[in-house]
């Protein structure tokens, strides 16, 4: 089996496992969906309750209910949210883009800023900026992300009101297409910087350690000995190997990034899946919360597969023979 097919098969297996877990969680939750619906309606006749139970398959054995649940999910039916008064799937699809935008832009900020900081402090371990980087990493790691968000919110709501602190768009909206995009980006600044703040620390520590390792290796000495300037040594030769642990970490931490998004979206009223998770947990809206669990698992899975692909591209030892053989390093000059 080709590796990608194998990877996909294993991913689908894991997703089915997530669905089974979801089903078990529904079973364990106090009260069944019908009781919740009846509660929302403010009471119903015995007859209606019995009809709803039959409709939901609650009068059948558990294993049949599991089969029903799985077959419903396959057709995209994740149930109906009585709190939000719409099908769960459409609710999630509405909120998904905002979360992907937030998570991906935070990840980009964290990787770029973190790696640059790590490279710098690996190059000049005694420099003033290196101490700053060390302190910044510690702060980013130790401060709770929701608190960082609230501190930025205080700062930018009352002291420097240059960034909006709530929501994703202006209330009045924007006339032009460009204006709308800029408006969203303007709202994106604080949430994405907040979410990135935790991971900047991780990536700067990681890339510092791995660059220190790489910069001490023989091939870097060779590159220096043949008279390459420092920028080429770092960005042309060292970075590629130095980035490998960073890429691994991106894949491993994607799930945590989503967890951070729940907190950051709640702080900044960002209309994504994270805030939806928070809202539906408060209302005990189980169909919605479990569907979010499922969709976030898909997101993490996709991120992991993308990481694996990136991994193969960066590290020729893993990419197998698929990469074109690169030119001999000496001949490039």
């Amino acid at each position: 089996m080709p590796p990608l097919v194998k990877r996909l098969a294993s991913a689908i297996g894991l997703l089915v496992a997530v669905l089974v877990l979801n089903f078990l969680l529904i079973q364990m939750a106090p009260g069944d969906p019908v009781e919740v619906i009846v509660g929302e309606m403010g009471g119903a006749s015995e007859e209606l309750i019995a009809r709803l139970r039959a409709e939901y398959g609650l009068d059948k054995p558990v294993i049949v209910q599991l089969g029903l649940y799985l077959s419903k999910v396959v057709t995209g039916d994740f149930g109906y949210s009585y709190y939000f008064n719409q099908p769960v799937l459409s609710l999630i699809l509405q909120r998904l883009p905002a979360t992907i935008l937030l998570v991906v832009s935070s990840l980009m900020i964290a990787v770029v800023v973190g790696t640059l900081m790590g490279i710098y402090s690996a190059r000049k371990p005694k420099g003033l900026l290196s101490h700053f980087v060390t302190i910044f990493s510690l702060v980013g790691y130790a401060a709770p992300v929701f608190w960082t968000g609230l501190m930025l919110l205080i700062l930018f709501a009352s002291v420097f009101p240059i960034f909006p602190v709530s929501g994703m768009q202006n209330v009045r909206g924007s006339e032009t297409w460009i204006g709308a995009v800029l408006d969203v980006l303007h709202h994106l600044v604080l949430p994405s910087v907040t979410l990135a703040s935790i991971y900047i620390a991780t990536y700067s520590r990681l890339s510092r350690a791995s660059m220190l390792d790489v910069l001490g290796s023989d091939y870097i000495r060779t590159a220096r000995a043949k008279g390459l300037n420092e920028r080429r040594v770092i960005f042309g030769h060292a970075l590629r190997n130095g980035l490998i642990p960073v890429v691994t970490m991106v894949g491993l931490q994607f799930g945590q990034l989503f967890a951070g998004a729940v907190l950051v979206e709640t702080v900044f009223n960002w209309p994504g899946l994270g805030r939806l998770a928070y809202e539906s947990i408060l209302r005990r809206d189980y169909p919605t919360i479990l569907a979010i669990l499922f969709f976030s698992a898909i997101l993490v899975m996709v991120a992991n597969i993308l990481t694996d692909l990136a991994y193969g591209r960066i590290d020729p030892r893993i990419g197998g023979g698929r990469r074109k053989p690169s030119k001999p390093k000496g001949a490039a000059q």
Partner: protein
Amino acid sequence: MTETTSARTTAAPEATGPKPAHPALEFLRAFARNQSAIIGLILLAIVLGTTFLGPVFYDVDPYSMVDMPFVAPGGDYAPLGTDYLGRDMLAGIIEGGRATLAVGAAAAVISVVIGILIGSLAGYFGGWIDAALMKVTEFFQILPTLLLAMVLVTIFGATLVTITIAIGAVSWPQVARLARAEFMKIRKLDYVQAARTAGARDAYLIFRVILPAALPPLVVAAGLAVGAAILFEAGMSFLGLGDPNTMSWGLIIGQNRNYLLDAWWTVTLPGVAIFITVLAISLVGDGINDALNPKLRRR
């Protein structure tokens, strides 16, 4: 960290002496030379002292009203101000630290125990056991931990015990991966083979022969797990998913969040407490790591 290197040169003669010191002593010496680790230790002592001895010196009920709501720090009745219900912030922070630290430590213990169990079995036996256990680990890694813990707490009710178990039950995969890697490395070493040839059973090999050698990196991971669990607990209580009847740092921030522009101290100060605690734990953890790892010590 420049100070550590200069301090080391003065202490160097011992290291080059004919007899190497006892490993534990060597470890303590290396740890004591590390300035940031000592700062971490002092901060940790302050945090623990404040939360556990604080009520003796500052005897104010954290749940009762002492003044008007939103009195700024430095008021007549409350040195750190009051919250949205006029409760004493200092008393709240002292009281809230206990729940936060207890949940953090207990959840970390749970996650480290599960992680070591799964990781050691996977790394020791390899083969299909490894494959199966790693599938389980992967399964837990694709689910966002916070979300899963939120669901568990909603279903089983928000008490300190359920929150602790929920946090512990979702945070073990990293420890498991670390333990597995260590076990895979160590099980191939000669002394393990020797013990096996001498007829030691699997359980003995796992817990008495390999585990002690695998412990140092796991101890560091356990320290970091405490910090992570504290942040985790704070996040859950901030969202209002903590035990509503127990004061905790996250809960104070969450409850006062809507008034943060009028009363900055109500959300800022408990956050500073969380920050200092996690910072102290991570500084001490780094110090232990550096002291255990002679290769890093020389850097």
